[in-house]
């Protein structure tokens, strides 16, 4: 703590105002090491002692017992409390209460503890989203099935081509064998006829 900071606190300490204990400790620590601030602190304490010697006497009127209430201020009646000054704070409180209530209701609605438009709208929206999702899925599925059919067709055609080739080959082979057999039989018959 420096001298300026110390002087800012000097009146708070002299008059015992509320102060954080750490700040108070720092204040007195500074006084121990600073003759200027220490001198000023003592000066304020002495001034206070002098000031306390000033006493004023009580006015004679104050000696009157509390029961006798013929005071001049009682002759003037206060205005009733129905002007701006009295209903305005009440109105402020009512308005604040209304706003708080609205806030609480909105929170409950938001979390679905109260029936209300917000929840229905959410459900409707959810249904729409599900429908959109199904439509999109269906579209994708249709596309996929189409692609699969094309592939299948190609496969079938390819397979058919191969099968046909096989059949053809088999037929060629059978014909070949038939021709071979026929040729052999003819040869055999010829041999037999020659015998």
């Amino acid at each position, binding site marked *: 703590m420096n001298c300026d900071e110390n*002087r*800012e606190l*000097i*009146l*708070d300490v002299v*008059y015992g*105002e509320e102060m954080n204990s750490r700040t108070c400790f720092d204040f007195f620590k500074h006084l121990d090491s600073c003759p200027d601030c220490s001198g000023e602190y003592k*000066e*304020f304490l*002495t*001034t*206070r002692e*002098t*000031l*306390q*010697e*000033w*006493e*004023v*006497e*009580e*006015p004679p*009127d*104050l000696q009157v017992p*509390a029961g006798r*209430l013929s*005071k*001049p*201020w*009682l002759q*003037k*009646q*206060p*205005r*009733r*409390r129905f*002007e701006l*000054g*009295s209903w305005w*704070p009440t109105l402020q409180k009512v308005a604040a209460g209304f706003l708080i209530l609205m806030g609480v209701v909105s929170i409950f609605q938001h979390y679905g503890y109260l029936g209300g438009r917000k929840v229905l709208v959410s459900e409707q929206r959810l249904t729409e989203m599900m429908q959109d999702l199904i439509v999109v899925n269906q579209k994708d599925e249709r596309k996929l099935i189409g692609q699969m059919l094309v592939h299948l067709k190609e496969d079938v055609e390819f397979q058919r081509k191969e099968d046909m080739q096989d059949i053809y080959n088999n037929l060629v082979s059978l014909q070949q064998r038939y021709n071979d057999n026929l040729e052999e039989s003819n040869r055999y018959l010829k041999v037999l006829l020659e015998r």
Partner: protein
Amino acid sequence: MNRSDDHLLALALQGDGACFGELAERWQRRIFSFVCRHVGNVEEAQDLTQDTFAKAYQNLDRLTDPARFSSWLYKIALNECRMRFRRGRNITHISLEKEDESEGIDIADATTPERHLADKEKSLLLKEAFQALPEEQRSVILMKEYQNLKFHEISEIMNVPLSTVKSRMYLGLKTLRRLMEKKL
């Protein structure tokens, strides 16, 4: 039954004049001592104290926060002192002490007449020193030193920042010390 200030104030706010009277009895000693030191004149202080309570009673419906009754009362009293200062009424410098010196000595009091006179002299010197101070500094010191108000309460009563209250207090005390050193 000893009713609290809050209770009396609540009844006074409902139009109970007697309750306000009781409240005033409790507070007038403090308000008087503040006003008396402020203006430096017993008779004038009595009038200003009466005026303070009369104004408080008339404007009771304007007291928006009953918890601030004392600050509000000091505010009215301070305003009365300032208005009196502006009106520049002729101040007959009557001592704050009783006119007849012999009347002021309490037989039961252990202090000697010499001591009593010395005390009266000191009070007179203090009164003069305070009257020489700027009004703002005087008000702050009176509220702090003799009414034991917190700095933040004074700030509220005078409607100035806390730092202003403290600087007025600081300067005022320094000036008072200088003035008293000259006189003593």
